[in-house]
């Protein structure tokens, strides 16, 4: 997500990059898709895997909504 935002900002701020992306890809949608996808996969593989079950993740969401302490979820 951050990589997509960073890409978008660079695309808008740095004109030569903007011109190149527009000429080659006709817009930022396709390159942002590729960049974000790659970052998403790489970052996920470099970080510890998910540890919560579906029920636990729902409980974490609801705890966050109600601003409760989440240590008791697991």
């Amino acid at each position, binding site marked *: *997500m951050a*990589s*997509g*935002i960073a*890409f*978008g*900002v660079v*695309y*808008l701020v740095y004109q030569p990059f903007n011109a190149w992306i527009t000429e*080659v*890809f*006709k*817009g*930022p*949608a*396709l390159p*942002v*898709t590729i*960049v*974000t*996808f790659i970052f*998403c*996969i790489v*970052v*996920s*593989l470099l*970080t*510890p*895997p*998910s*540890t*919560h079950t579906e029920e*636990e*993740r*729902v*409980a*974490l*969401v609801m705890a*966050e*909504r*109600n*601003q409760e302490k*989440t240590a008791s*979820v697991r």
Partner: protein
Amino acid sequence: MVSGQYAVLFVIGFFVYIGLMILIAYMTSKKGTTQGEDYLMGGRNVGLLLLICTAAATAVGTGTSVGATANGFRDGWLGAVYPLANAIGLVTVAFCFSHVRKHKFRTLCEELQFYYDGSPYMRKFMSVVIFIVSIVWVGSAINGGANYLAYLIGMDMIPAKIITVLAFGVYVFVGGYMAVVWTDAIQAVLLFGGFVTIAILAIPAAGGFDNIRAAYEAAGNPGAMTAFGVGSKGVLGVLAVALASYYGAMAGPTAHMRVYTAKSPQTARKAILIAAAVVGCFSILPAIVGMSGFTIASNTGAESVLANPDFTFAYMATTVFPPAIGLVCLIAGLSAIMSSADSDAIAGVTTFLTDVYALIFKKPVEDKDIPKYSRIILVIMLVGAFGMTIFANDIMSYINNVIGSFTPGMAVALLVGRFWKRTT
């Protein structure tokens, strides 16, 4: 700009229409759906028909109607790409995301937290992003509606923006989410009816398809008549338009909110699929209107439209058709803008109260306080969006471009999170 009796007719029709929307909101508020969380979620009991109408009307916003018509004007059948990709985005929501209805989420931030191992950081980060996105989208709708009014009746931009804000702000304030849903239902009928009418009448008005083809050939753009305007924009050009629209529909908070508020996961899936089919069928209409508008404007030398194709739809309604039909078409155009603006506004308010509020104040909003706080945030949000369009239009346009650039990133993260359990 239209003049004389026609302008008066339009203004009267417009205010009657707004009055009707506010009346619907008032009646909705009397049904008890404005208490507690129900103000934002409609009691999580929205039925099939209402859900179809609201999902379809929200999908057909400024970009899918006025923007797609302008695309049709410039590049022929390219005009069908934006709404068609939007429909495919809805199909993705129906098949891939409707199952989360069972978890009773309120916002897309919560859904993302769920996909990303319950990470509160993901939720906090996204809450700020989505709230800002919602304000900018509401601001864009205000600009779109005001431009429309200014073109039609020559009104100054500031009063036109005030009228546009009030036009949808009042009924959202009064009735909350269910007012959005019910007014969307009326707006869906008007906007689809208006577009079908204008498209049916547009081709004969342009002298038939042979004339349309000849106009693009004379303008040196015969590729506009190829499938999806590929001959004019190229495959990558069409793909860029399609992806931008697809991601907006699939990863935008409004379609997901339809899932959270449906009566059941099955209702959500069925309704969004039917809405996608309606929007898919609708997709050829802006292209037809745009191409016909180009032909008529080229033949008559309509400089204002040739210089700014965004006015194609209003031009067709005011100069090509008789006043009564033109009025229906104009209301259809306004319906498209307002049906999306109200949904963006309520999505922004929901995100603020559920996610941003907790981020700032470290406590949730009490259920009984939700309607009161929602109305306060709605007013702040509308004033903020309005102020942005007045004092920081360049900044807003800039942020809008940034949003366009990173929405694909948000969409990819959503899809990967949904389908790859290893994602973090």
